[in-house]
């Protein structure tokens, strides 16, 4: 019984982490994290402004369906 519970909890945990990853990608948090890693900087107002500057054009061109 115990191993089964552990397995279910493990799967739930993995499911939640995938869900969080999906949300972080949709909400551009992952893109910001990649930007920080690429530019070797830490999160700050300046870094976020630079990220928005770079990201804005791509975001504004992104199609949204009807």
């Amino acid at each position: 019984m115990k191993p089964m519970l552990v397995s279910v909890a493990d799967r739930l945990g993995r499911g939640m982490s995938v869900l969080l990853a999906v949300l972080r990608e949709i909400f551009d948090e992952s893109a910001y994290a990649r930007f920080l890693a690429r530019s070797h900087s830490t999160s700050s107002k300046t870094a976020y402004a630079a990220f928005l500057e770079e990201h804005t054009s791509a975001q504004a061109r992104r199609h949204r369906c009807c």
Partner: protein
Amino acid sequence: MHPHMTRLFRLTLWILLAIVGAAAVAIIAVHRGEQINAMWLVVAAVCTFALGYRFYSKFVAAKVLALDAMRATPAERLENGRDFVPTNKWVVFGHHFAAIAGPGPLIGPVLAAQFGYLPGTLWILAGAVFGGCIQDFVILAFSLRRDGKSMTEMAKDEIGRVGGIVAYAAVISIIIILLGATALIVVNALKSSPWGTFTIAMTIPIALVMGIYLRRLRPGKVLETSLLGFVLVMLSIWGGQWVSHSATLAPLFTLTAPTLAILIILYGFAASALPVWLLLAPRDYLSTFVKLGTIGLLALGIVAIHPSLHMPALTRFTDGTGPVIAGKVFPFAFFTIACGAISGFHSLIASGTTPKLVTRESEARMVGYGAMLAEAMVAIMATIAACVLQPGIYFAINSPAGVVGQAPETAAATITQWGFPVTATQMHALAQAVGEQTLYNRTGGAPAFAVGMAHIFASSLGGHTVLAIWYHFAIMFEALFILSILDAGTRVGRFMLQEALGHIWKPLGHTSAYPSVLTTSALIVAAWGYFLWQGVRDPLGGINSLWPLFGIANQLLAVVAFCVATTILIKKRQTKYIPITLAPLLWLVAVNFTAAYDKIFDPNPRIGFLSQARQLAATGGNARLIFNFRLDAFMTALLVMMVTLILFESTREWLRVLTGRKQASVKEAPFVMTRFALEEQA
């Protein structure tokens, strides 16, 4: 378990699923007279989609597209940490679904419910499995093999220069019509509704606060900011009821359709010209947040209360006399539901951001085919939300005053005469329960969907006392959805126009130069604003003209996508498999060319644009209205001509290749072995 036993067990499960699915489809198809439970639609959809995914998409992936998990994708080969990023398949799936799921799969099925629940449901099931999912899947797969190129670029490369230019022009035209039609839905949902207008008006300062919070206080914390925005929106919904009862505030937010249209046009211009981080991005985040949550909640609500459908399987309006969308069930039901079955617009997303994120080629099946199945499921839920309403109530909300009359008693009497009993007292009580002054003549689908959704939500959470809150939550959800599309669509249209104009005069192509930004924003907003204004002034409610125009435009874009896909298959010598893309292509041509012919030339003034213009001219009608109907006829003809040109160019290319007059060569990126396979082995 022994492998043979496992295989036998799986086979038995799939056979069982097929039997249950067939039984569910048979029940919804042959059941007449009594109400059926909504769960039959859910079961039919789940089984059909599961079988379609397991067998049909697997066959297409293996035999037709020959997806190769060993082949490096653009995300891997061109990885730059910005646009090209290898991403977990579930993350790409979620990202792709969030981009393709808009208000279309909610609105189309609600409008098509006038024919009964059966035509729309069958079309969603078959259209998605054999059409929409295939389009999204093959376009994604072909874009993956071409460095993530866009559909218009692929059209240029594979069909020729003319194909590319026409596809480009078709996309801009469709964006304009789409924005005009969806803006009209918001206007019709918010007119004379102080509660709804207040809530939606509040989302603008909320988005501005979110933008500033995100940039100045908590850089990069988008999820946290979206949650904050969501709480503020919920508070504004709660506060809306006091606004609607306030003697001072209620008149300020009780607006007529023309006033709302002007405000939305001004908003569209501001959203396109203001910095993205300030308004567009936060609204987009907020809208996505609400969208994903609400769709999940609706699914849970339907399963929890498994309501009965009050709408019959088929109504008398299959003969073309429907008050919501005038026209016979064929072809009108099949393009009224575009996004839930086949949406050409998806091909732009499947060849936009998504192919730049897919890590392994084999994942295209789950992302392209699977995400569209999820969208079709949303369309089934929308059908249920519309069909749980009493038909009399559904028609009272969705019928324009020009058809059923202005006075409540007249409208109720007309609808009752059609065989769908409803009384003015019943409608008044419902309007009171949802916190509105009236629910008559709320064309556009959104209010009917909101009433249905509120009914489902209130039955599972809170009961009748919170019906008004749920109704306004649903209206806010749809309007937020649509306004986000107006923001994004106007900007995308602006960029496309700037790029096109840049070929004529270079300074106009500078996407960040303010004179160019303001000019092109004004042009795009004026274009969709004109359609919106036309819809507002239309005595038949506007949706009767604009939604068919949008549906036809959207599915003609799907024709372009299938032309590109079929051309590539022929060039790859996959001729025996071309029915996979050619069959939906021919179906779409049959539906949309018939629909376009009907919309232009039908002698019934409620259907044909030209006869409507003629009738108005004969009765000394408004010159502007006459011009508008002729313009609609011209736009429909223009779209058909553009697509005919692509069909002609494609057919010429197919014949050249098939007869050996042209060397078949596709413009695929060369094969590169993926490093992920080696990493997996290691």
